[in-house]
């Protein structure tokens, strides 16, 4: 057992690591330093675990709370400024309205979400845009066209008809143009996946001029050169209802999906791919999803920290 002074020192070290990990710009060397420190011994892990109760309490406080807490003049000013510009973007159940600017229906804005966050926006043309976890999109509306550029993650659009101004979603792989429709666009490392819930969407690859028109109920994946054959929709838009739906899904694929909604990493052994998961899981509580897997499957889950989870078969 360590004495009081050593414990205080360990606590201080844990605090310093925590502050480093919160920077939002952790370098691989810093991450490795932290992991090495944590692996030093049980006392370090104990000190770290104690600190995580604060981290957890903070995470459970809604992001909006920042605005409710003690005077926060800068953020207040920024919000007012955004309102003046005709932009309100607040996460929540009610649909925030991105209002018309004074000049015209022009709108140029960037929106993004953190891991685990979803955000709904009402665009000036009446289209509804929803951003899934860890996503980034630029909105560029002008008199000729309504352009959205998806840089990262996943969006869903319920587009308002406007014959004069086509609505397009662009990714590094190409473009999806809506023809009065509801559709989902997910950007993956090597491909873009579009699934159509209503109406039709025209797809076009960035190079090679490949194009296809996708009907309601279908999904297609495309790279910058090729479009794969269309498949029937699965559960692509379950996330809109805050759900993760697995229908006989391999556990490794399931964990990859889950990891999108959870800060940090989930590591797993190759053997987990042999296990199959089915069920509807609430995305709001990824801890509980992990816990529920333990009841259903022969697994062992170790938490080195909230951000570092390891899943193995028994």
């Amino acid at each position, binding site marked *: 057992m360590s004495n009081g002074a050593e414990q205080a020192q360990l606590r201080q070290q844990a*605090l310093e690591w*925590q502050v480093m990990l919160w920077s939002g710009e952790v370098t691989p060397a810093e991450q490795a330093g932290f992991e090495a420190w944590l692996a030093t011994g049980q006392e370090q892990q104990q000190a770290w675990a104690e600190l995580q109760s604060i981290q957890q309490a903070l995470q459970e406080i809604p992001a*909006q*709370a920042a605005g409710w807490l003690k005077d926060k003049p800068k953020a207040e000013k920024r919000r007012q400024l955004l309102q003046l510009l005709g932009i309100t973007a607040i996460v929540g*159940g009610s649909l925030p309205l991105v209002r018309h600017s004074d000049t015209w229906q022009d709108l140029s804005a960037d929106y993004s979400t953190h891991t685990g966050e979803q955000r709904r926006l009402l665009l000036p043309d009446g289209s509804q845009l929803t951003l899934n976890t860890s996503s980034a999109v630029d909105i560029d509306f002008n008199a000729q066209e309504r352009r959205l550029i998806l840089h990262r993650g996943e969006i869903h659009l319920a587009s308002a008809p406007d014959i004069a101004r086509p609505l397009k979603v662009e990714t590094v792989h190409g473009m999806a143009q809506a023809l009065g429709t509801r559709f989902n666009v997910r950007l993956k490392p090597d491909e873009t996946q579009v699934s159509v819930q209503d109406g039709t969407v025209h797809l076009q690859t960035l190079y090679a001029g490949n194009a296809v028109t996708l009907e309601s109920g279908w999904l297609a994946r495309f790279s910058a050169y090729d479009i794969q054959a269309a498949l029937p929709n699965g559960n692509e838009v379950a996330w809109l209802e805050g759900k993760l739906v697995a229908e006989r899904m391999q556990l490794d694929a399931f964990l990859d999906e889950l990891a999108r909604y959870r800060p940090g990493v989930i590591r797993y052994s190759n053997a987990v791919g042999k296990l199959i998961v089915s069920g509807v899981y*609430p995305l709001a509580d990824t801890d509980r999803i992990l816990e529920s897997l333990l009841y259903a499957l022969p697994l062992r889950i170790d938490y080195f920290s909230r951000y570092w989870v390891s899943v193995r078969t028994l």
Partner: protein
Amino acid sequence: MPAKNILITSLTQQLYTLHHGWLNAWLRKKLGCHDTAADLAQDTFVRLIVAGKAPSPEQSRAYLAQIAKGLVIDLYRRRHLERTYQEWLFQLPESQLPSPEHQAIVLQSLVQLDQILAELPRKVRETFLLSRFDGLTYSEIAQKLGVSVASVRVYMLKAVQACMVQQ
């Protein structure tokens, strides 16, 4: 029990007998609620014991009134947060509503955090909120507040230390 504490306790008893009546009446008038007033009157004396120092007889009344006023402000602040949180919950779809126990825990964290932040310097408070709730990176915060990234780290450390102490 050390002699000093016995002394304070007996002094508190005296103060209680002398002052509880008007304090309770004053709080009742201010809050318009019998039960809350009674609770806060009790809390006022608890604070006095925790503070561990007894006021001189001629200052007792002012001292107790000051504590009670602080408690009333805390209560209003708490109610404000409670209401804001409730309004926020009200907007959520039913499927996403946290359980009542969970709501109580979150509200408690919120109130605690509010108290902790209130006592921190403005820049520390802002840094912490920008980092933890607005999701800004340290570089972004540094730029926004016109300070160095090293200062941002120091502010963050101060803030999280304050959270740890409160816990």
